[in-house]
Structures are given as C-alpha cells and as structure tokens.
C-alpha cells in the first residue's frame, strides 16, 4: 500500500534521513521505533507532505507522491496524526473533529463523529469546549479522532503515547488494534518500542536517519540486540 524508497530529507544543510526504505502492506500495523532524534517524525512528515524530501520516492497505492501537496494527499487516503498533536486550539473539540472530515459533506460525517465519541467518551463530554483547554492526553485523543475523520486507508500515527499516563497508553494502543480490525492500515511511530512492537505485525528500527533492523514484530522483540538497545530488558 505504501512504499518508501531511498528517502532523503534535510533541514537546511543538515540531512536527517539518509535513504530510508520501508514497506507497509495493506491491513498491516507497521511500527517504526528508535531513539529520540532518529528521524522517525521526519519520516512521517515526509510521507504526509509537510516536510520536503531531497531524494528517493514515496509511492502510495501505486501513485508517486512527490509532486502532490500535503492537503491533496489526505484525499488519497493518507491521514496523519502529528507529533505535538497540532490540534486547532481556537476551535471546539467538535469543530476539530468536523474539520478532520473537511473533504466530506455526507451523512457518514455524523456517524464517524459518533464513532469518535464512542472511542473517546471524554471528547463527547467536552465537545463544545475549546480544544486548547484539553489536557495533553485528551488532545492526543482528539488528534487521533480528527485523523480518523478523514477516512484514511492508511493512518500515520506519530508518538501517540507521548506524555500519557500508562492507562491511556494502553487505551490508545487498543484503539490502534481496533483500527486494524476495521481494515485501516497503520504506520505507527513510537519511542515506547515495547508497547508498539506488541501490537504491530512488523517493525523497523531507526537510528540516526537510517533503518538498522527490520522484521516481524515478534522476531524484533526476541532479538537480543534489540532487547538490549531499545527495549531495556
């Protein structure tokens, strides 16, 4: 469904992705784990189009994304729940969700909104409050809910567990598993490698802008090198 080939990207003169190759098959949960600063977030930003690339290719459902601006990639079925959440703080929770489905104006919007509220009941409680006043965890839920409103075929999920209490991390990872059962493909970027590998089908380990290991999630969890370096066990 999504394939990344030799992807390079730079901030100014400093290259941060040095040729990344990655495959995400339809219906898979694939996770990219690695330390802070490895380039995981940059990778997702390149795929969704808000970070310019300097080499390589991104192919989504057979279409090269290079010349397609970020706002048109959403329409292709690629939805990004960004790091730092980036919700619209000046709008209400409900307005944030509604804008997630900016490209749609049919009755399914209401249904998807109801689904978001079922998934995250706290958002329903706060639906008419400004999103800027939500706690970090609630903003994270809102960002995921908003990304799902876009009816993604492939969801790019960046650090959903960042800054969250363990119980919320478990809740959000449960949501990711539910998505898989609904047929949504997920590319999950996480620092919390152990939690991510537990729900993923396959995983990639990233280190300073390169993929250093890849394999089935179970194999990665069992690999002694990875256990020591990334899982801390």
């Amino acid at each position, binding site marked *: 469904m999504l394939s990344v080939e030799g992807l390079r990207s730079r901030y100014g003169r400093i290259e941060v992705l040095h040729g990344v190759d990655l495959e995400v098959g339809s219906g898979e949960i694939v996770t990219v784990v690695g330390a802070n600063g490895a380039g995981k977030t940059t990778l997702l930003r390149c795929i*969704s*189009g*808000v970070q310019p690339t300097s080499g390589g290719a991104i192919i989504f459902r057979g279409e090269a994304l290079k010349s397609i*601006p*970020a*706002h*048109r990639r*959403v*329409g292709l079925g690629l*939805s*990004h729940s*960004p790091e730092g959440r*980036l*919700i*619209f*703080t*000046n*709008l209400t929770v409900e*307005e944030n969700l*509604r*804008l*997630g489905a*900016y*490209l749609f*104006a049919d009755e399914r919007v209401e249904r998807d909104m109801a689904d978001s509220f079922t998934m995250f009941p706290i958002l329903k409680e706060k639906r008419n409050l*400004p999103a*800027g*006043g*939500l*706690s*970090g965890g609630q*903003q994270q839920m809102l960002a995921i809910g*908003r*990304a799902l*409103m*876009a009816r993604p075929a492939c969801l790019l999920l960046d650090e959903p567990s960042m800054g969250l209490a363990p119980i919320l991390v478990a809740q959000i990872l449960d949501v990711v598993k539910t998505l898989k059962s609904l047929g949504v493909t997920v590319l999950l970027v996480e620092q919390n490698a152990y939690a991510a590998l537990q729900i993923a089908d396959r995983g990639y380990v990233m280190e300073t802008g390169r993929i250093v290991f890849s394999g089935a999630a179970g194999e990665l969890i069992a690999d002694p090198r990875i256990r020591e370096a990334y899982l801390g066990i």
Partner: protein
Amino acid sequence: MAELLQYLLSGVTVGAVYALVALGFTLIYNASDVVNFAQGEFVMLGGMISFFAWQAGIPLPLAAILAIIATASVGVLLNKLAIEPARGAPVASLIIITIGASIFLRGGAQLVFDKQLHRFPSFSGDDPIRILGATILPQSLWVIAGAVAIFLSLWLFFAHTLTGKAVLATANNRIAASLVGINPNHMMTLSFAVSAAIGALAGVLVTPITLTSYDLGVAIALKGFAAAMLGGMGIPAGALAGGLLLGLIEAFTAGYVSSVYKDAVAFVVILAVLFAMPQGLFGRKAMDRV
C-alpha cells in the same frame, strides 16, 4: 436633547464606516494573523472605481458592483504577488509588506485616476430624515445597513460554515490545516478577496457623504484599525462594537469638546486599549496548553 441625538446619529454613521473597515481587518487577521494596512486602500478603490465607472456612463448600481469585483481582484493579486511569496516570513514582515502595498496602491490610484475629490449621488436622495429634532441622511442608513449586513454574514460564515472554520483553522495552524486537507493558500486568497470586497463596499456606501480621493485610505485604515483593536482583533462582534464606539466617541468629542480633537481620539483609544486591555473589549486572553 436634540443636540445629543444629533451627535448620536452622526456617531453611529461614522462608526458604521469604521466597523466595515474593522470587519475587513478581521477576516485577513483571522486567516493569517496579518493586520492588512492596505485595507484603507480597498475603501478608496471602491469609491474611486465606482466614480470613474459611473462618470463613464455606467449606471451607479452596476458601477458599484464593478468596483467591488475589481477591488476584490486587487485583493487577490495583493495576496498572490506580495503575501504568498513571502510565506514563512514573520508576521511583522508581512504587515510591513501590506504597508508597502498600501503606498503602492495609493500611488497607482494617483496615476490611473487623479488627485481630485469625487462624489457620486446618494442612493436615496439627499433629503435629511428628521427624528425628534435631529436629522440623518438617507445615505447614512445605507451605511449602517451595510455594516450590519456584513457583520451578520461574517458571523454566520465563521460560526456556521465549514469554510469559515477552515479559515480559522488555517490561522491557528497551517500545517495541521493542510493535514486535514485544507489548502491554506486558498483560504488566504479567499480572505483577501472577501476583505477587499468589504472594504470596497464601505467605499461605495460612504462616498456620497464623505467624498473620495486617492489618499483617503491611510486615515480610514488607522481608524478602522483602532476600532478593531478596541473591539478585539479578529472578532466580528468586536469589530462592529469597536467601530460604533469609536464613531460615537469621535462625534461626542467633536460636539462637546472641540472638533479639533476629533481625529486625535482614535489614537488615544489605541493607546488606552494597548495599555489597559490589549485583547480588546470582546477578546479572549490567548490560551495554550503545552
């Protein structure tokens, strides 16, 4: 009593003009955080283009529509040629660009049109309407109706349409906006077009009362800016209230103190607002949680 009512009526008329200009500020500010100091030039273009089209033999209503469309196009060009290429520059730089655009438009108007004062007839005659010993011009009622209509449309737009929310979302976070499929450049173009059209409408409505000339923009932009600041930048209701309040303060100062100080009032208001309540009457304190 009649005197008080007279000041009130003229204050509301002038205030409605300021409110229209302030509403123009609101839209672009909401889309981009930019205070567009060329807003006064849109007012000037509305009046001037209407006048010259009317003088060329086009019926006045048609001339007015033509002027509004032409000014909206100028707004779009301003965005495409001056603001969009400078995307990524700090907001202060963009504001300076709008000041440059304002000087450019004023110079252009001087060349294309002329340096005379111009007026075209009022829409419903010039016979003053008497109310309890005070009078108001029929054209003033047009101005007030225009301000109210634009306020209501903008309020509906921001509160009840998806496009309105998309404009607000773009101002809040351009990257997040593009991640949900909003084209931020479209939102900017839209805001500049509508803002320019609102400015032009103000120019069309007010020309029979105050006349128009190529250099009318600076003063009116400053008054509109003061009104928008007073009400709370970016809030349609604030723009309306700020405009009317500023108009009334001016009219009462002119009536009860001296008309010499009339124009100074706007600046005193700007200073007072900035010192005492920078978020304006209707503004909310900026709130962000990390």
